[in-house]
């Protein structure tokens, strides 16, 4: 893990605004330079641009720096935004609200509240204990991992803003509707007994007096943590994607992940659930599949089920939920993802 040297850390903290302006300008400049630099780099290689290897290498050399640069910038900005939305404040915002509008709020807050799947259980209990309705809690728990800045950044970098926005909208919809449905099913009895017997806790939002300098620190910290953890997956994903780009014939995927294959969407979900990786690794592969004729609906369904439903998370949740509630959760979310997949295939 890389850490910034001490004098560099001190300067941003003293003049945080100046640092933000300078860093923003430097970032934009770098981003503008990227495309010509990647072209020039590939041009110096003793390869035909049109050859298999040439195509694969160009994909790799252009996309890797682009994705990493975008990701660093956005993760930094989100780290600062996250410092305004602690789980405690989110809980205070949601506690005592009735379902419906609260599901929408919970799903939206899921995007900006910092969340790590290792905290899923204490967070779940904290919400329920403070009187956040079960369905609203689920809206949050579905949206938080699925609609996150890493997934959105990668989608933007590899597919453009339209697909990124579409994913944002549909991810939120799945979280809102699935949470609402779970709320309607009155599953409170399927919480583990010790969770139901816990004393009610008041939701108190902690004092928030962070300076801009401290928020900068939060940004640096999340870059170190998230980009530091995720970059090997991105490299691996882009390398596999580059291989697919260079070597797999066009329309190869159309035969079994294309629009006309009705079972492509359910199959994508079934394959996706037991797979456990993060958005970072899966998106570059997905982009390459799409280029080879896979339908967008099946591909998005695959992505969502990989990210939103994972086996390790179920095991963690089993500590607080009875099996029947976990099964309901998986069933409702998977159904939502299926619908998203079919809608996409039909519309595009």
């Amino acid at each position, binding site marked *: 893990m890389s850490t910034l040297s001490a004098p560099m850390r001190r300067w941003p903290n003293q003049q945080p605004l100046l640092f933000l302006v300078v860093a923003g300008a430097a970032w934009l400049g770098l981003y503008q330079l990227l495309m010509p630099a990647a072209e020039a780099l590939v041009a110096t290689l003793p390869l035909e641009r049109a050859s298999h290897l040439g195509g694969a290498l160009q994909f790799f050399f252009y996309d890797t720096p682009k994705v990493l640069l975008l990701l660093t910038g956005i993760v930094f900005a989100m780290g600062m935004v996250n410092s305004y939305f602690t*789980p405690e404040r989110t809980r205070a915002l949601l506690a005592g609200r009735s379902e419906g509008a609260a599901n929408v709020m919970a799903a939206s807050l899921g995007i900006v509240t910092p969340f*790590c799947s*290792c905290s899923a259980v*204490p*967070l779940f209990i904290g919400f329920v*204990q403070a009187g956040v309705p079960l369905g609203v809690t689920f809206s949050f728990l579905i949206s938080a991992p699925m609609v996150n800045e890493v997934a959105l950044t990668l989608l933007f970098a590899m597919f453009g803003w339209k697909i990124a926005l579409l994913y944002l909208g549909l991810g939120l919809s799945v979280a809102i509707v699935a949470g609402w449905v779970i709320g309607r099913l009155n599953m409170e009895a399927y919480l583990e007994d*010790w969770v139901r017997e816990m004393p009610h806790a008041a939701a108190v939002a902690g004092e928030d007096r962070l300076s801009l300098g401290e928020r900068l*620190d939060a940004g640096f910290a999340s870059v170190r*943590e998230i980009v530091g953890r995720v970059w090997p997956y991105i490299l691996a994903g882009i390398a596999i994607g580059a291989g697919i780009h260079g070597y797999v014939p066009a329309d190869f995927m159309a035969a079994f992940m294309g629009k006309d294959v009705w079972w492509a969407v359910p199959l994508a979900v079934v394959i996706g659930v037991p797979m456990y990786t993060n958005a970072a690794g899966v998106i570059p592969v997905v982009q390459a599949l799409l280029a080879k004729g896979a339908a967008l609906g099946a591909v998005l369904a695959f992505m969502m089920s990989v990210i939103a439903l994972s086996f390790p998370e179920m095991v963690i949740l089993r500590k607080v939920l009875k099996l029947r509630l976990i099964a309901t959760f998986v069933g409702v979310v998977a159904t939502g993802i299926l619908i998203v997949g079919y809608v996409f295939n039909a519309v595009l």
Partner: protein
Amino acid sequence: MKVIKVLGSGCANCRNTIALIEQVAQAKGVAVTLQKVEDVRDITGYGVMSTPGVVIDGKVVHAGGVPSRAKIEQLLGTA
């Protein structure tokens, strides 16, 4: 002797937190007893929702991420 508990279900960040507190305590020459609290019930009993959390002498002093070195120094110095 300060009793410091680190709350968290054994994820990487919790281990990093423990290592960092050990380092700082050693550097400052403060005697501490470090304990891991991994059971979900105990963690939520402290009212902590995002791990890792740090409890010093029974009081929650930090939650929701690896604390910075500066923060640990301050906690060990004054608390």
